[in-house]
């Protein structure tokens, strides 16, 4: 059996060099970094011992004196790290729960020790207790085009309280586990004015940023463990019949991170969507959810392929972690992601579907379009939530996508809008902030919900098909690169100009300056409308800037006036629908810029009702109630709700009294 191990090792190191193609026929990215890791999981000590060969290519024109690597796992080292302090000192922290990564050796490809140049840095906050960024000053600066090879031996201890990564008993989710290159940003890339490493510390409210890489990962785990990874399985060997371990070799190409999970309790299902083989790992008690998961992910695959671009990998792994591993749920690593569910989740509660669609969407928004989530979380979470809500709305119902119970229906996009409009912090900061700089706990509301809500608003203004074109163009231009928010805005400007010419002005910057970069709220309201009967002496046509409808041959004429107001700071073009008692309707457009706007009509019929934004396109509007006004509001639903409330209380009191 030793022999087979040896053969395996030879195959491993010779057959899969970083530039070869196994997953796809041609490389999808420039592959500035690559990793070959041998990892051994020790379930008793909760450690992963790793041997890593990795490279970084200097694609810039700079002479680069150092390299910088993330040692993410050190964020779990104690309660003084930046992640710990930002999350309130990790409540109930125990030493046994800590996680860390220790570098045992660090050399160049020839074995020359690089540790003398090693130093921990804290570029974000200067916290000396934070050891999540490692800088290595190299003996010689790296010339443009040169490649740095490193060999690192490390031991990673997984944290006992899972936060994306960690363990619980025999359940392991292994992520952010190996020394990982930061992104060297040369001049002109994103917002760079001079070449520098972009290598942030691990924050409580931030996720990641990295280059697209090749990964060859050899994982050794006890035989009874089921393993899921972001790579494709090249070979699986159990070296010794009596041995207790098995060796799995995986290959992944052009993904931004490599994560894996191991747990004896998984059952594994597979399914196929076009070119994509889908693997699902979940606890055996949840086999009734297998179809739901596959259906959701296929919907997402189809929707993204149609409206954004191709999912380029031939495989995808979904993990539905058990209850004890819930801390790992709802996280994305491009070709592997975790959903979120629980045993017996009712069919009307679409949590598993929503999380699956969301996490899958990240394969596009930061997987393929690898934006910097440290610095621009909205470009990742907000854009992705927008797509998740669209898919949930289309396939699971606009008003019942999240909860679809006869008693309670809530749409996914409603939850998002509500979280934004009801937040007391909705104006405290703009959407353009580093992840860890959102004050008053507004990170989630801002980066996910406000961003998704104004993206919906943008779609309301430019239309659904143009919105899809924007994203198709974004994909075409930026796939497997590192777009910034500005790059996205530029794409919007280009596409909108192509489609509409100057209809919305020279560009759409007026929109982004108010929504993405601004803190104002949007609130349009109908203040009043009235109909004054004109007496003969008054019977002259009132010429105003609005339409005049004059009915001849009728007995009386009315001067009807609609008074509108912009109550918020955000100025957006809005549709106005004025409805007359004779059944006629007039569509008006208001540029929304003034503080108020009046529409005056002279005609035979009186105004019956007025609606601003009748199709609810401007989802940023923080109050829909004041968007419309009628002389005779429909009170029936309120009566119905009151009557139901009465009988609910009657039955409830009778039920609880003996």
């Amino acid at each position, binding site marked *: 059996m030793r022999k087979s191990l040896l053969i395996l090792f030879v195959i491993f190191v010779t057959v899969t060099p970083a530039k070869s193609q196994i997953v796809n026929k041609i490389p999808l990215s420039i592959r500035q970094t690559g990793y070959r890791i041998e990892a051994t999981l020790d379930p008793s000590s909760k450690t992963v011992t790793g041997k890593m060969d990795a490279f970084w290519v200097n694609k810039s024109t700079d002479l680069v004196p150092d390299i910088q690597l993330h040692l993410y796992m050190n964020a779990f080292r104690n309660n003084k790290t930046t992640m710990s302090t930002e999350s309130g000192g990790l409540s109930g922290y125990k030493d046994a729960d800590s996680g860390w990564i220790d570098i045992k050796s660090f050399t160049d490809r020839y074995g020359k020790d690089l540790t003398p140049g090693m130093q921990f840095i804290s570029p974000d906050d200067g916290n000396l207790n934070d050891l999540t960024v490692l800088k290595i000053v190299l003996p010689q600066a790296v010339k443009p085009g040169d490649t740095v090879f490193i060999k690192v031996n490390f031991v990673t201890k997984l944290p006992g309280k899972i936060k994306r990564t960690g363990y619980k008993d025999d359940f392991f989710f292994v992520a952010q586990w190996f020394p990982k290159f930061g992104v060297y940003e040369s001049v002109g890339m994103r917002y760079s004015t001079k070449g520098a490493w972009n290598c942030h510390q691990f924050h409580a409210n931030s996720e990641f940023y990295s280059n697209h890489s090749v990964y060859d990962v050899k994982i050794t785990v006890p035989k009874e463990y089921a393993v899921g990874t972001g790579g494709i399985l090249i070979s699986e060997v159990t070296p010794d019949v009596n041995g207790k371990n098995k060796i799995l070799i995986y290959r992944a190409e052009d993904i931004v991170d490599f994560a894996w999970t191991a747990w004896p309790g998984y059952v594994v299902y597979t399914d196929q969507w076009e070119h994509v083989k889908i693997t699902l790992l979940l606890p*055996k008690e949840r086999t009734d959810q297998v179809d739901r998961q596959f259906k959701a992910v296929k919907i997402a695959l189809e929707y993204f392929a149609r409206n954004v671009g191709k999912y380029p990998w031939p495989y995808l792994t979904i993990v539905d972690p058990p209850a004890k591993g819930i801390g790992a749920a709802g996280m994305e690593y491009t070709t592997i992601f975790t959903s979120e569910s629980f045993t017996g989740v009712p069919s009307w509660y679409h949590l598993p579907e929503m999380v699956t669609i969301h996490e899958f969407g990240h394969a596009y928004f930061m997987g393929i379009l690898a934006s910097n989530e440290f610095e621009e979380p909205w470009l990742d979470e907000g854009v992705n939530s927008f797509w998740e809500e669209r898919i949930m709305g289309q396939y699971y119902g606009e008003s019942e996508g999240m909860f679809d119970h006869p008693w309670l229906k809530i749409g996914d996009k409603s939850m998002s809008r*509500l979280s934004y409009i009801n937040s007391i912090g909705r104006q405290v900061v703009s959407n353009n902030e580093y992840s860890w700089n959102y004050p008053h706990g507004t990170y989630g509301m801002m980066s996910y919900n406000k961003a998704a809500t104004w993206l919906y608003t943008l779609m309301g203004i430019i239309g659904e098909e143009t919105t899809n074109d924007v994203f198709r163009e974004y994909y075409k231009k930026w796939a497997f690169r590192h777009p910034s928010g500005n790059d996205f805005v530029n794409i919007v400007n280009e596409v909108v100009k192509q489609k509409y010419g100057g209809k919305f002005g020279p560009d759409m910057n007026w929109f982004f300056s108010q929504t993405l970069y601004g803190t104002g709220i949007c609130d349009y309201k109908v203040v009043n409308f009235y109909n004054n009967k004109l007496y003969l002496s008054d019977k002259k046509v009132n010429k105003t800037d609005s339409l005049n409808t004059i009915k001849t041959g009728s007995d009386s004429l009315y001067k009807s006036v609609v008074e509108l107001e912009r109550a918020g700071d955000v100025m957006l073009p809005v549709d106005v629908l004025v409805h007359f008692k004779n059944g006629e309707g007039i569509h008006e457009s208001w540029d929304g810029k003034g503080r108020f706007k009046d529409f005056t009509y002279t005609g035979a019929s009186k105004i019956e009702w007025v609606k601003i934004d009748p199709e609810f396109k401007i989802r940023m509007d*923080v109050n829909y109630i004041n968007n419309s006004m009628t002389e005779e509001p429909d009170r029936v*639903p309120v009566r119905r709700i009151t009557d139901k409330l009465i009988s609910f209380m009657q039955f409830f009191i009778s039920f609880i*009294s*003996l």
Partner: protein
Amino acid sequence: MKIFHSIKSAVLRTMNLWKGGLIIWISSFLLVSLLAMPIKGAMNSGFGKSMITEKLVDGLNFEVFADMGTAFKTIMSFFSVGLFMIVLVGFILNAFFTGGVFNRLKGSSGKFSAGEFFSASAKNFWSFLIISLIISLIILVLAFFVIGIPLAIVGQSDNSPEGVLFRTGIIVISIYFLLLTILLLVADYARAFQVTMDKNLCFKAIGFGFSQTFNTFLSSLPLMIILLLVQLSFGWLVLKILPGMRPANGSGVFYMFLLSQMLFFLKIMLKIWRYGSVTSLMEINTLRDNTSEISSESDF
């Protein structure tokens, strides 16, 4: 046979008590209206002349309510405080009226008189209130011990496999329902006993409730299970019908209102029927017991 005889006899007694049911229904309606009407007013003023209520035609739409902003938060806090008060008063009122109900359900018959009904309610009030409070307290405490603690232990334990929590939940809830059945028997027997006494003897009544329940366990338990199953099916039916109803016009809402109130009246009558069945079974059993007691006494 005793069981069916009790159930049948209770049907007659319940039908004779429809006026009592009516009194309970009216008082309950007035009580909850105290809370519902201001909420209705607040909703109407919150929506003003808006047409947003169109969005409520298909059912509760949280987006619409959330747009009310602070007004909605005020309504919700008013509702939660109000609901607590209403439930409290409802509980007390219920203790009051059951006094009259149990009194009327006694073997004796005769024409229903509101005066008699209210005076029996008043006479037994304190005893009934204490019985209700004590049994309710036991039910709450049991929920904590029988459901809360086992689930907490299973939920905390890291080693229990997926789904154990779910299965444990089903088991403990079944056990809890069995205990609930027994406690309802105790409460009903205690009250049926109390109305036969001249004075308020709540603790003695509870004692009687327990002894009667366990002495006649083999007939009492099946009786109560049958009664509760009927009530449960009725509850299920109500849940199937009412919450899903979404009439769009005024008359539709009015019919829905009538239907819901009729269903609630039926719910009251079903409960009276439960009280009647237990009373009737008690009468059958104690009659027999008394005769056997007398005969055994005569041995001495």
